[in-house]
């Protein structure tokens, strides 16, 4: 009997031939990601549980991103707690202002194909982009992993998504994942793995795959999985070993469901307020007045996203009285965008470029809105009140669409 990607990763982790969906197993953790919002709670629980040592301090990565730069007086307490814990337990990987956790976990060379990773943030699903099994957990479970190096998981069933063909101009991987979430519903993949394949996926950059893996959680998925290929190897700066090369869904693997799409059928879409699965074609929303545009986040703050936006904005100006905020996902991306002139293009068009971090996406600062305002954003959630009040409307879109909206001052199609 064949296996899906996630089944193969879990089986390999356990040192067994195969695992079956529904089985409850205890995995050995390859990496954990701890973020700044949760760190005081993690530390408390860790001590409360009676642990004194982290099982492997070199496997924990502590990242400050939600609270950088500090927007409230108490925010820096989180840095101090994190620094003290890192010192106490000898953690060697600490990032204090280098960007968003989910960007750094692969970009900075931690997560590799086949790894089992947990993070205290729901978008930990992102690392599926390189063929890792990764998912979000709470701070109590994180504390338990830090002490034991293990966690129980239920082997998920897998939904296979096949996309064949070539995407039309003006359509980005964000449009695919939004459409998929719309088709599945916000709970359509709850407890399941989303496995992506097909020629359109093979053609995609790692960045594009990241955007999709990142948003798998918005359909409720436990994780996402992409087969590691040459692009993955180059991105991770490794040679794929036999196990990693074999991380593809077998022809006779058990899938709970198989969804097949033609890439040519995708169009630019938006998730409308205030549910991620309320998907509509941008075409149908054209002309809706907007107040602000946000391009950034662990979903769509990478170089290719900024480049796509810059291409739309080049030589143009952000519409009067509309604010465009651009937040690169990491220090590395910022520097690359600086070097290739993308930041200059964006600023000349009128963008406000902020320091890499979670920014507006996490709703604590970075362009919070008020009653009656409308924002088009490239991040992953448009929940009620997430970027302002319950009367603030959030539309989620691709970077190209977002840039086009900024220029028009209303919802617009990039290639029109």
């Amino acid at each position, binding site marked *: 009997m064949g296996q899906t990607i996630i089944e193969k990763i879990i089986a390999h982790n356990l040192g067994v031939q195969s695992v079956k969906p529904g089985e409850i197993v205890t995995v050995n953790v390859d990496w954990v990601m701890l973020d700044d919002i949760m760190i005081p709670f993690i530390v408390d629980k860790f001590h409360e549980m009676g642990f004194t040592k982290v099982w492997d301090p070199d496997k924990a990565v502590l990242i400050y991103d939600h609270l950088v730069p500090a*927007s409230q007086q108490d925010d820096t*307490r989180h840095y101090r707690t994190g620094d003290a814990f890192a010192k106490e337990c000898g953690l060697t990987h600490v990032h204090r202002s280098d960007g968003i956790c989910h960007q750094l976990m692969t970009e900075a060379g931690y997560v590799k194909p086949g790894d089992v990773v947990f993070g205290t943030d729901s978008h930990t699903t992102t690392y599926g982009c390189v063929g890792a099994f990764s998912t979000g957990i709470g701070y109590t479970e994180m504390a338990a992993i830090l002490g034991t190096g293990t966690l129980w998981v239920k082997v998920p069933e897998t939904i296979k998504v096949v996309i064949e063909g070539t995407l039309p101009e003006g359509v980005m991987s964000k449009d695919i994942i939004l459409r998929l979430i719309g088709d599945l519903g916000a709970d359509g993949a709850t407890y399941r793995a989303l496995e992506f394949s097909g020629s359109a996926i093979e053609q995609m950059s790692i960045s594009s795959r990241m955007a999709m893996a990142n948003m798998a959680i918005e359909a409720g998925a436990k994780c996402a999985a992409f087969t590691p290929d040459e692009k993955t190897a180059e991105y991770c700066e490794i040679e794929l070993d036999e196990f990693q090369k074999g991380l593809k869904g077998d022809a006779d693997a058990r899938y709970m469901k198989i969804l097949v799409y033609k890439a040519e059928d995708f169009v630019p879409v938006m998730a409308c307020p205030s549910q991620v699965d309320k998907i509509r074609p941008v075409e149908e929303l054209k002309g809706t007045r907007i107040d602000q545009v946000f391009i950034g986040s662990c979903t769509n703050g990478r170089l290719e996203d900024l480049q796509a936006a810059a291409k739309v904005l080049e030589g143009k100006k952000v519409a009067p009285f509309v604010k465009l905020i651009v937040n690169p996902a990491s220090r590395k991306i910022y520097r690359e965008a*600086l070097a290739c002139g993308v930041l200059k293009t964006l600023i000349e068009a009128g963008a406000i470029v902020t320091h890499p971090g979670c920014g507006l996406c996490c709703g604590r600062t970075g362009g*919070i809105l008020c009653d009656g305002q409308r924002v088009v954003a490239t991040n992953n959630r448009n929940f009620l009140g997430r970027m302002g009040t319950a009367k603030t409307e959030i539309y989620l879109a691709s970077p190209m669409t977002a840039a086009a909206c900024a220029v028009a001052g209303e919802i617009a199609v990039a290639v029109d």
Partner: protein
Amino acid sequence: MGMTIAEKIIARAAGVEQVRAGDIHTVTLDRMMSNDGTTHLTVDMYNNKLKHPHVADAGKMVFIVDHNVPSDSPKTAAAQKKMRDFAREHQIDFWEGKGVCHQIMMEHYVCPGELIFGADSHTCTYGALGAFGTGVGCTDLLYGMVTGTSWVLVPETVKFNLTGRLQKGVYPRDLMLTIIGKIGANGVNYQVMEFCGDGVKTLSVNDRMVLCNLSVEAGAKTAIFEADEIALEYLKSRGREPKAVFSSDPDAAYAKEYTFDLAEIRPVVAKPDFVDAVVPAEEVCGIRIDEAFLGSCNNGRIDELRVGAAIVKGKKIPGHVRFLVVPASQEVYLQAMEEGLIETFMESGAIVMNPNCSVCWGSCQGVIGEGEVLISTGTRNFKGRAGHPSSKVYLGSAATVAASAVRGEICMADCLATS
């Protein structure tokens, strides 16, 4: 009886031949600036308190969103929306996220000879171009906006005769902090600081802005330089013409005169919690810091970014320090990118932010926590100004701030270079 530059500007604005310190005159304002710190309050008064609300001359008004950019709460967003909607309705020039208000005003509006009200205390910056800029509350600003006029009590002028030239490694900020330390935080209360003497010829418009900007910290109503060829060249390069170029008359009356030899100025630091608690930088060296801030309307221009970048180049900021670099405007930001300064900062581990008031105003970008220590090129070090009431702020030059960021404790650039 002769007049000082400030008196001449007021006389022109009042349409009279002669004014003297102590006179009260009704003046026609040349320009008014209001930022997101208070504009929403002005708009509320406009809408709720006036019988016949109207804007006298929208062309004289400038609204600038700079204090909380990008917005940190629905409350801030609502205040800024009120401002944005008002600007749109009345066709008032509106800037958002483009830089700190005084920098925007200097880059795009201020002309020698103008009388300018700004709803921000550091409006005194505009004296660098020979304009009379002064900070007012929102009631005064509202009156000015509705009538185009206001009243002024003609202030006395205090002469600051500058001689010589600043030594290498010493900056206008050291000079101004030294002056404030000497005359005290109320040393020139309600007076005008007029800078003159040979020494001013060694100071660029940027340098003069540093001096004028901090004059309010000595209690001044404003500070002013004569619009000389250096000022006029700056103006010309930006395609603007002076309104009027005034010099003080030889027989003008001064309340007091001071002389400062620039060559004698040394790097200094203002200690918490007072701008006039100025000591030689050596005295505070070694104090551990949590954050360093290079930016603000006082010290966030290209000159200071160059100084800072030269010091951090090739070095790494230690993990426990947050080094915030905040260009004063998008223009400065783009220039700094062009010169490779932003890359230098980013490579060192600094946090480079969008132009805004940032921690100088103690709001949403880089506030400091309980018991933390900040060394800053900002304007003020009042208790709690940058965050938690128990936090401490030291003020120093861009060089001292950058060197301190690299060292992780207060440090002079010279010491860093020799260590």
